[in-house]
């Protein structure tokens, strides 16, 4: 792993490599470069995940000539595909050094170890939506129950924007969630259920099911489940597999007030 990164940096395959470094017992995102090859000893692979491709995209927006390598799993690859489809990056600008979806060599592309079922409280199971639930299990509930469960979850929202800010495929310059005409500002919780519905709709054809939003959520709203439903609908209705290819999504304009050509850092693909 370290040799490969060293090789990539030395041969100029990439100018910068984004990975993780252990600091005082915490794995933190870190940029490795040719100038600091000695640091490579500290590069680690762990269950820790971060939207490194988002950092890379932001760096590329300022320095488009760079080539950036990232340590990535399958979800990072899907996110890079979506970012390419939406013209936020050009093909080849981001190189992924693939690692298994969990640190075991035996379980290639297994479910991420950090996303293995956690235990949630009994009251949440009764009033809210369990984060371990599947879309199929949710379909067992009637409309009234679904409604009260989701509203319970949405009412916890603290409007920290953690879900949006960590999201590798949230790249809009102007975010509808901050638009006072769509979602009233100045109050907590943010308008129920509008805030979360708007975000869900904008995830159609974009969400790569990385689950970082749900990990970031301080109040455990089952966002991944909501967006899984969104992606399920996109797949059922339009046969589109988000993040699987460089193919345009069925409604690449969905949720955007401007077509992609007018986006600030658009580039021809």
């Amino acid at each position, binding site marked *: 792993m370290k040799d490969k990164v060293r090789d990539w940096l030395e041969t100029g395959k990439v100018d910068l490599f984004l990975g993780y470094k252990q600091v005082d017992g915490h794995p933190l995102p870190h940029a490795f470069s040719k100038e600091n090859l000695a640091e490579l000893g500290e590069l680690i692979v762990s269950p820790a995940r971060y939207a490194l491709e988002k950092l890379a995209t932001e760096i590329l927006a300022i320095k488009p000539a760079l080539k950036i390598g990232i340590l990535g799993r399958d979800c990072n690859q899907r996110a890079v595909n979506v970012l390419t489809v939406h013209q936020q990056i050009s093909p080849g600008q981001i190189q992924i050094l693939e690692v298994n979806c969990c640190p075991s060599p035996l379980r290639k592309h297994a479910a991420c170890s950090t996303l293995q079922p956690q235990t*949630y*409280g009994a*009251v*949440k199971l009764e009033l809210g939506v369990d984060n371990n639930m599947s879309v199929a299990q949710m379909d067992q509930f009637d409309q009234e129950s679904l409604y009260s469960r989701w509203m319970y979850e949405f009412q916890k929202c603290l409007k920290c924007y953690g879900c949006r800010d960590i999201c590798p495929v949230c790249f809009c310059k102007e975010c509808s969630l*901050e638009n006072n005409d769509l979602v009233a*500002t*100045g109050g*907590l*919780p943010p308008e129920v259920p509008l805030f979360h519905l708007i975000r869900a709709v904008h995830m159609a054809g974009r969400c790569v099911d990385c689950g970082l939003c749900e990990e970031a959520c301080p109040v*455990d709203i089952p966002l991944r489940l909501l967006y899984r439903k969104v992606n399920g609908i996109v797949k059922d209705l339009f046969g589109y597999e988000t993040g699987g290819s460089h193919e345009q999504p069925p409604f690449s304009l969905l949720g955007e007030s401007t077509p992609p050509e007018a986006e600030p850092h658009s580039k021809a693909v």
Partner: protein
Amino acid sequence: MTNSIAEIEDAACVFIIGSNTSTSHPLIARRVLRAKEKGAKLLVADPRAIQMSHFADVAVNQRLGSDVALLNGMMHLILKNGWEDRDFIKARTEGFEELKETVAAYTPQRVQEISGVSPADLEKMSEIYATRRPATLLYTMGITQHTTGVDNVKSVCNLAMLTGNVGVASSGVNPLRGQNNVQGACDMGGLPNVFPGYQQVANPEANAKFTKAWGRPLPDKPGRTLPDMITAMSEGKLKALYVIGENPKLSDPDANHLKHAFNNLELLIVQDLFLSETAQGAHVVLPAASSAEKDGTFTNTERRCMRLRQAIKPLGNCLPDWEIASRLATAMGYPMSYRNAEEIFREMAALTPSYAGMSYERLGIDGLHWPCPTADHPGTKFLHPVQFTRGLGKFHAVQYQDPRELPDAEYPYYLTTGRMFAHYHTGTMTRVSPALDREQPTGYVEINPQDAFKLKVREGEVLVISSPRGRIEAPAKISPEMLPGNLFLPIHFGENPTNVLTNSEALDPLAKIPEFKVSKARVEKLVE
């Protein structure tokens, strides 16, 4: 806090009083919600129907300033039903008989007359708090910013001790600190009467220790509190003021009165990141570096001391606070030659017993909770497991007193003040953020829909709010969170300076904290 933040998750009961937790302490609110989802009962007592009230098993809206009556009423019922913890009372406390006598008079009916809380709700709250253990109690400025602030805190402690809810994991009395480092500032002696580590200036031993360490004779009498300083300024007895990272022109009560006091000063020095309202009137402004530009430590509400690491070099000509202080001291004839923040931390740890075991190396990323007296001590997650600081915990029997001001014919509304979630204090840091400005661009006054209807005022129309101290204008925010007859003003907005209305003379006699939470006021629609 006597407990640490993560422990809240494992409480069997969380009682929030006088804290809009999701707005002001969102990351503590998350722990409360997790506790609730694990099966804890949640009690919320607040004059407003706040976000946390939606999740409460019992939510009450006590009248502003009636907390002592409410808490005494709970203790009355706890004793009446035998829910108190007799073993704890016997082993760990004193003064129980006086308390028992005092709370005997706070029958549910009387409590209802004072606070408006129904006997049924009071009974439910008392039972849940006393019987679901461990119970944790969270409070903030809704308890302290009153003329009876100290009484309120004593009552909160009485309740916790009565039910044995102190000194155990997930169970304690937890005032949530309003700033990242206010605990640290107090720990370091940022108070008129103590050296670092709460060592009294008037204690000859402590005084000798610091005199030796710092090589200069030190005052052995407590200095002035902030309200005393303002008085001294108005009387011309205090001629120079050096303000670091504070914006009293917006944050202190009775802004008009304060302005006169400031005009009397011969020298005003302000050290801040931005040109705050106070800095605008200063003779000298010292530009301070922001948290991203310096090294140091913060000690947060759970007594956790954590390192702050410099991310970028200070921009422009600003300097870290410690460097400004060092240079100033050197220029004034007391040479300070610290090379970095770590050197200061070492001196601090050497002189402060509760920090003695800490070093930058040990703090790492996670930090350590004080007390941490030795280099191999793991830090302390919760306080008072065996005994209180003074030995036995003392019950302070407290009688209810009305707030200094109650509504009258001329000023028929209750006015209370506080924070909203998108801004911080006087907005010196948050109002320059475009994202937060979009979230809440101006001040406002929250008013109950029925009151708004009576005043024929629509959302966003300008209201004039006046008190015996002055008048301000603010757009109306019609909010069902408010009880009829109550107004709420956020404190962040210089163009709607809330503290023009508050009273600088209504102070807690002991702590000298102003009664920001209750004033009388009049409100009318602005006639153009």
